[in-house]
C-alpha cells in the first residue's frame, strides 16, 4: 500500500508516496494527485533522498547525561518524570526562567502543544527558528498589510507577467517551486533578480540587480523613486487602499538612481529599467527569502518591499502578491499555532486582554500577558544566568544561531536542557535529557506550507526503537506536570486528530480545517478557512487588508548600512548561502550518502580580483576571520560574487563567523552581511582549525 506523506524538507510541501515492500521501503512520485504543490509529483534531490532518514544512528531510547555528551539510556517513565520535575521546580520560582523552542520541522499538533505547555506553566518564553529566517517578514508584512503570511499561491507566480525575486536563490532553495517561475517565463513573463550573487536563479533573469549585501532599502527606495517620478504607481489603488503616500514620496525623492547606484553598486540604468518593468506589468509577484530578511534592518527591508508592491497595486488579485518563501516544511504552521512569544494560536496577541481571557477560560488556567523571549534574546538571558531551563524540540541552535560559539556558551550555562530530536546533533551533546522523537514519515499530522496550504501527512514507516511522536512526548510531559484536566484543560490526547480538533476550536483561521477534511483531500486547504463548509482562501486581501483600518500602511524608511561595514582590519563583506542538496544544519541531509557525495564541503566564493589581492588560489584553502570567530574553507574563484564580497554556505557551521546583532523589531540577527578578512592557508592547517571547531561542537 502506498502511503501519501508530505516531504520533510522545504516549505513547498511536496507530496510523495512511501510504500513498504518485502525488502524495505521505497519512494514513489505522487503523479496522480491533482492540485498538489508539486505538479506531476516531481521532487528535488532532498525529496528524492528522504528514505535516507532511516539511517542507523537515529535516537532510539531516552537518554540521560552523566556528564556533557556522555549518556545512559533510561526508560520513558524516568525521562518524562525527570523533565517534569525539573521544569516544575524552576517554574515554581519563576516561570520566566523557562524557555521553550518549538519546531518548524514537526507537525502543527506538537507545535500547538509545546506553546500550550509553556503558557500553562506561566510563561510566554516560546519561539522557534522562524526567528532566524522570517521573523522580519512576519513583523514587516503585518505592519504594512496586517498579517505576516504569503498573500498568494504558487499558481499566482505562474500567472504573473513580471516576477521579482529578491534576496532569494529560488532555484536552489525551492527547486520544485521554481517550476512555476519557469512556466511563467515560457509564457513570456520577465524575471527580475535582486541578489549579491549571480545565482542559479539569476541565470533565469531578464534584469539582474547585483547589490551589495545589506543595501536593500536603498534599492527599494530607488525603484519607488523612479516609479513615482514617472507617475507609474497605481494611483487609484494608492488613493483607495493605502495610507502614507505623501510621506513615502518625500522620503524616496532623495533616492535618485545615481545615488542608489553609489550605495548598492547597481547601475542606475538597470534600476530605471527594473522599476518601469515592474510597475508597468499587468500582473507582478515579488518573492523573497533570507537575503532580504536576515538583516539588522530586516523589518524595514520587508516594509520597503511591501510598500513597493502596494504602490504598484500588485496585490489582492490573481497573478499578483507578496510571496515570502519559507525554508522549512512547517514554518508557517509553527507561526500560525502561536509558537511565538507574543501571540497565542491564530496570531491573537498575548497582550490583548480579551484574547487572553478566552485562552484562560479555554485552557482553564491563568496566563501571562507579558511578551516572552525570542530565541536570540534567550541566548543572551542564559549567558546572564537569568534563564535556567530550555526545552528544545527538533532544532539545532548550535549550528543555526548567528555567532554560534556564543550560543554554545549560553546552553552550557543552563541548569537544565532537554532536547527532543530524531538524530544526535551538536545541540543534543549539551543536553541533560534527550528524548527520541519520530521523523515526519513515522507519524501523522497536519502541516502548513509556504502558501498557507494545510495538508495531512500519514504514517508510512515504523519508528526505530522506542522513538515516539512529538505530540505524544509533549502530552506525556504535560500530564506529568499535573495538567490532567479534561478536554482542552489538560493533555489527555489519544491521537494527533484530537489535538487538531482542539486547534480548530481556538484558532479562527483553522476553524474549518478538520482532520476529516484534510484526510479526504490530499491537496489540502488554504487558511483562512473559518468554517467546515468554507473552501479555504488561496488569495488574500482582495477587498481589504487586515490592518485595523483595512488599508495598506506604506512605510517611508531610510537606508542604513549593515551593522558591520568593511574597514582596514576586515576589508570584505561576508554573506552566507545554501546548497540545493543540503538542508539547514545537516542534521538530516548530512546523513544521506546520495546527497553528501554530491555536496561534499563548503566553498568560499571569491571574486578573481579579490583572490589576487589576498593571494587566494582556486581550489586552495582560505582562513576566514571575523570579530566573532574563524573558519576555514576551500576557495572557489568566481565572478558570481562582486569584488569586495565573499560568500559561503552555512550548513557546516559558518555561523561561528556571523554577527548576532539584532533587528530591534523582529529580533532577527544580521546573518547575511558582516565584515571579514581572508588569507591563504595550507590544507593541513585548515583541517586542523576545522577539527578544533568540531571539538568545540560548533561545526558539523
Amino acid at each position, binding site marked *: 500500500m502506498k502511503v501519501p506523506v508530505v516531504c520533510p524538507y522545504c516549505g513547498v510541501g511536496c507530496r510523495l508516496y512511501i510504500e513498504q515492500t518485502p525488502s524495505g521501503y521505497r*519512494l514513489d*512520485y505522487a*503523479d496522480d494527485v491533482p492540485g498538489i504543490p*508539486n505538479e*506531476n*509529483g*516531481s*521532487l*528535488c*534531490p532532498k*525529496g*528524492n*533522498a528522504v*528514505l535516507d532518514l532511516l539511517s542507523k544512528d537515529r535516537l532510539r531510547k531516552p537518554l540521560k547525561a552523566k556528564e556533557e555528551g556522555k549518556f545512559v539510556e533510561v526508560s520513558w517513565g524516568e525521562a518524562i518524570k525527570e523533565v517534569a520535575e525539573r521544569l516544575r521546580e524552576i517554574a515554581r520560582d519563576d516561570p520566566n526562567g523557562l524557555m521553550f523552542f518549538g519546531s518548524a520541522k514537526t507537525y502543527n499538533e506538537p507545535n500547538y502543544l509545546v506553546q500550550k505547555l509553556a503558557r500553562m506553566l506561566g510563561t510566554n518564553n516560546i519561539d522557534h527558528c522562524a526567528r532566524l529566517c522570517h521573523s522580519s517578514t512576519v513583523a514587516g508584512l503585518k505592519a504594512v498589510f496586517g498579517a505576516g503570511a504569503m498573500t498568494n499561491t504558487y499558481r499566482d507566480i505562474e500567472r504573473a507577467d513580471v516576477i521579482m525575486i529578491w534576496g532569494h536563490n529560488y*532555484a*536552489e532553495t525551492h*527547486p*520544485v517551486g*521554481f*517550476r512555476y517561475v*519557469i*512556466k511563467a517565463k515560457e509564457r*513570456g513573463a520577465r524575471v527580475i533578480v535582486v541578489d549579491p550573487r*549571480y545565482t*542559479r536563479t539569476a*541565470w533565469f533573469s531578464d534584469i539582474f540587480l547585483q547589490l551589495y549585501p545589506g543595501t536593500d532599502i536603498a534599492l527599494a527606495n530607488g525603484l519607488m523613486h523612479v516609479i513615482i517620478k514617472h507617475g507609474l504607481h497605481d494611483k487609484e489603488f494608492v488613493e483607495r487602499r493605502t495610507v502614507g503616500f505623501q510621506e513615502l514620496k518625500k522620503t524616496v525623492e532623495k533616492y535618485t538612481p545615481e545615488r542608489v547606484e553609489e550605495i548598492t553598486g547597481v547601475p542606475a540604468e538597470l534600476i530605471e529599467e527594473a522599476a518601469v518593468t515592474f510597475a508597468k506589468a499587468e500582473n507582478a509577484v515579488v518573492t523573497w527569502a533570507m537575503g532580504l530578511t536576515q538583516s539588522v534592518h530586516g523589518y524595514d527591508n520587508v516594509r520597503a518591499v511591501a510598500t513597493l508592491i502596494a504602490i504598484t497595486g500588485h496585490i489582492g488579485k490573481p497573478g499578483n502578491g507578496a510571496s515570502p518563501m519559507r525554508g522549512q516544511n512547517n514554518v508557517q504552521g509553527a507561526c500560525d499555532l502561536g509558537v511565538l512569544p507574543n501571540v497565542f494560536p491564530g496570531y491573537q496577541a498575548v497582550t490583548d486582554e480579551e484574547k487572553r481571557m478566552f485562552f484562560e477560560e479555554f485552557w482553564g488556567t491563568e496566563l501571562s500577558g507579558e511578551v516572552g523571549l525570542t530565541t536570540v534574546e534567550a541566548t543572551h538571558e542564559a549567558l546572564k544566568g537569568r534563564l535556567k531551563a530550555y526545552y528544545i524540540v527538533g532544532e539545532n541552535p548550535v549550528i543555526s544561531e548567528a555567532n554560534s560559539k556564543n550560543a554554545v556558551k549560553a546552553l552550557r550555562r543552563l541548569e537544565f536542557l532537554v532536547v527532543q530530536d530524531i538524530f544526535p546533533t551538536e545541540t543534543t551533546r549539551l543536553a541533560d535529557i534527550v528524548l527520541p522523537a519520530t521523523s515526519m514519515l513515522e507519524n501523522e499530522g497536519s502541516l502548513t506550507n509556504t502558501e498557507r496550504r494545510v495538508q495531512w501527512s500519514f504514517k508510512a514507516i515504523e519508528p526505530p526503537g522506542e522513538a515516539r511522536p512529538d505530540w505524544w512526548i509533549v502530552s506525556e510531559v504535560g500530564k506529568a506536570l499535573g495538567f490532567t484536566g479534561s478536554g482542552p484543560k489538560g493533555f489527555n490526547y489519544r491521537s494527533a486528530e484530537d489535538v487538531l480538533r482542539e486547534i480548530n476550536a481556538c484558532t479562527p483561521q483553522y476553524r474549518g480545517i478538520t482532520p476529516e477534511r484534510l484526510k479526504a483531500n490530499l491537496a489540502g486547504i488554504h487558511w483562512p478557512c473559518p468554517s467546515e463548509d468554507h473552501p479555504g482562501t488561496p488569495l488574500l486581501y482582495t477587498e481589504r487588508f487586515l490592518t485595523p483600518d483595512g488599508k495598506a500602511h506604506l512605510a517611508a524608511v531610510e537606508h542604513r548600512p549593515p551593522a558591520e561595514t568593511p574597514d582596514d582590519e576586515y576589508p570584505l563583506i561576508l554573506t552566507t548561502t545554501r546548497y*540545493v*542538496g543540503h538542508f539547514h544544519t545537516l542534521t538530516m541531509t548530512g546523513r544521506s550518502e*546520495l*546527497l553528501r557525495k*554530491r555536496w561534499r564541503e563548503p566553498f568560499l566564493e571569491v571574486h578573481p580580483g579579490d583572490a589576487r589581492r589576498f593571494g587566494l588560489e582556486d581550489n586552495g584553502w582560505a582562513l576566514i576571520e571575523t570579530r566573532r570567530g574563524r573558519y576555514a574553507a576551500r576557495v572557489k574563484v*568566481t*565572478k*558570481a560574487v562582486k569584488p569586495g564580497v565573499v560568500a559561503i554556505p552555512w550548513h557546516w557551521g559558518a555561523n561561528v563567523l556571523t554577527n548576532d546583532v539584532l533587528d530591534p523589531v523582529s529580533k532577527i540577527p544580521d546573518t547575511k552581511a558582516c565584515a571579514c578578512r581572508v588569507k591563504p592557508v595550507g590544507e593541513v592547517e585548515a583541517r586542523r582549525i576545522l577539527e578544533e571547531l568540531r571539538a568545540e561542537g560548533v561545526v558539523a
Partner: protein
Amino acid sequence: MSGILIDPGKCIACRACEVACEREHGRSFITVFEFESSAVPLNCRHCEKAPCIEACPTGALFRDKDGAVMVDVKKCIGCEVCLLACPFGIPEIAGKVMVKCDLCPERRAEGKLPLCVQTCPTGALSYVEPNDFSAGRRKAYAERLALRRSENAPGL
C-alpha cells in the same frame, strides 16, 4: 519511439535526476554538468542509428520493444569498443561489463516515465516522441507570434 529530450535552458543543476537514478540503480546514468551560467544534464540518447550497437562485436547491445538501447550483461565482454564509438561518452565500465541508462524498463512496463524525467522539478527533461515534441514547439511558436499581433490590435 519516445526519447528523453533535454532542454538545458530549463536545468537548474539541482541534480534531482542523478539522485533519483542512483537511488534506483545504485549509480547514476545521468550526469549534470554545471557551468558559470547554465547547466547541461546528459544521459544516453538511445540513438536511432546507435553507433554502440553497430560497434559491439558480441551483439551484447540490443534494442528493446520501446526502442531503448540495452546491454545483455551475459554477452558483454568489456572490450570497451562501445566507449570509443559513442559520440557522447555515455558507456561506462562497471566491474567487467558496460553499464548505461536503460530508460527504466520496469517503469515503462507500468506506463510510467523514466525516473529522471518523472522527478525533474523544472521540466528540463521530457520523455516524448520527437515528432510530437517538434509539433508542440511549432504550435507554441506560432501562438507567440499570433499573440504579438493581437496585443497591438485594438478592441481584442
